[in-house]
């Protein structure tokens, strides 16, 4: 956007908001990568770091909420500014949840690292990579206000779902094969589910980006009143 706000302090508030959201996004991306590394490299110390680092994400969530409330109260934003603030208030929750899910993965990793691996980890790191990519792409779309990129995220989710289903079925087979596998397979199933959920949160972010840019809410098309 070429034009800037006449009120420079307002302009600065909006810049701070964008920067904080980006910082938070970068942190959760990193947490996904680290939690997966803790699993594949059987590094429980790293897993503990992920658990500890989540508090930074939580702190940013509170700070961003506060900043949004302050802007709403003091600036009465309109049009694209208003859509930016409401988008920020929504996606901050998704980002915080992604952080929590990375923590959950790290915690499962710590359990799994106590016992021999069930099988080489191939598809799970791949799923983690896809999930992380979706989060990154959604945040890029947010920063650049790029609807095309946001739509890529929305379309990309099928791939995660398919891979999750594949992992799920494989783990099910392990469980049926030997009941001693159940504990480990269940932990891995949780991890895969968490990764798939991360993908869903990335979708939420992408949907809000479309709203932010176009002013059109694309969520839940089938739940809408038919007269709309």
């Amino acid at each position: 956007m070429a034009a800037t706000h006449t009120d420079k302090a307002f302009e600065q508030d909006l810049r701070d908001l964008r920067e904080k959201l980006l910082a938070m996004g970068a942190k959760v991306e990193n947490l996904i990568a680290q939690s997966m590394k803790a699993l594949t490299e059987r590094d429980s110390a790293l897993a503990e770091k992920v658990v500890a680092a989540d508090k930074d994400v939580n702190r940013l969530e509170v700070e961003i909420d506060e900043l949004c409330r302050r802007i709403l109260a003091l600036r009465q934003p309109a049009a694209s500014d208003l859509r930016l603030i409401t988008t920020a208030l929504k996606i901050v929750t998704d980002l915080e949840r992604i952080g929590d899910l990375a923590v959950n993965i790290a915690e499962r990793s710590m359990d799994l690292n106590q016992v021999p691996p069930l099988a080489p980890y191939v598809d799970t790191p791949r799923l983690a990579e896809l999930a992380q990519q979706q989060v990154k792409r959604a945040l890029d779309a947010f920063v650049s206000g790029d609807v095309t990129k946001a739509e890529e995220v929305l379309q990309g989710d099928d791939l995660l779902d398919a891979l999750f289903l594949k992992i799920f079925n494989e783990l099910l087979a392990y469980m049926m094969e030997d009941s001693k596998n159940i504990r480990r397979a269940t932990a891995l199933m949780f991890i895969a589910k968490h990764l798939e959920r991360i993908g869903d949160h990335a979708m939420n972010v992408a949907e809000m980006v479309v709203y932010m840019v176009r002013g059109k809410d694309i969520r839940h098309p089938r739940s809408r009143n038919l007269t709309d």
Partner: protein
Amino acid sequence: MSLQPHTPRAKMESRELTLRYGTKTAINKVSLAILEHRVTALIGPSGCGKSTFLRSLNRMNDLIPGTNHTGHILLDDTDINDRSVDVVDLRRRVGMVFQKSNPFPKSIFENVAYGLRVGGMKDKAELAARVEKSLRGGALWDEVKDRLNESALGLSGGQQQRLCIARAMAVEPEVLLMDEPASALDPIATAKIEELIHELKAQYTIAIVTHNMQQAARVSDRTAFFYMGELVECGATEQIFTNPREKRTEDYVTGKFG
């Protein structure tokens, strides 16, 4: 009662209205409908033509020498600039409330009764009834009913403004034009005026000029954005303030001008 939301008709409408003060173009080819029983807010920076447009709706610009116009303004189906239109009658049908409250230096009662007397009403009981009705409509009755014969100049700013609204309403106009009606008032008095506007639209069609965009957002159903004499965009107020179509509207409502 129909389930379909009633689509209001245009009570007033400008068609390709261009207005010049001498050689300076104040409004350029503005086509805008003022919908019946709706509040239409006119917003835009100083000098954008919004007040000129408002004043042209009851021919207040006729009073300014050197003014000329092209295009049309319709009230219902009548061109208000037609020779056959009596301007006094027009201003009875299209009333105006100004930025600065301007009560006459008379009693509260006489302020409201003035227009009625000018219109030939003589019956005392009828006058009293209309004054009471207007003051009630102006949300002022309870505050002044015991001192109707005191000077209107003794009222507070907010009360004076409501008195002016009551005075405008006494002659039962069809359209009320308001030029910054609350800009000189404190927040409580402003809230009373805004509440009043909400109530009045059931009976009247209202067009309001305001520099206060939050006020436009609060009181109006439709918002028209003027810029440099042109109508840039007109739409549902919610749309203008959440998702305007035009870049210039966006820049204005987000505070990016100047």
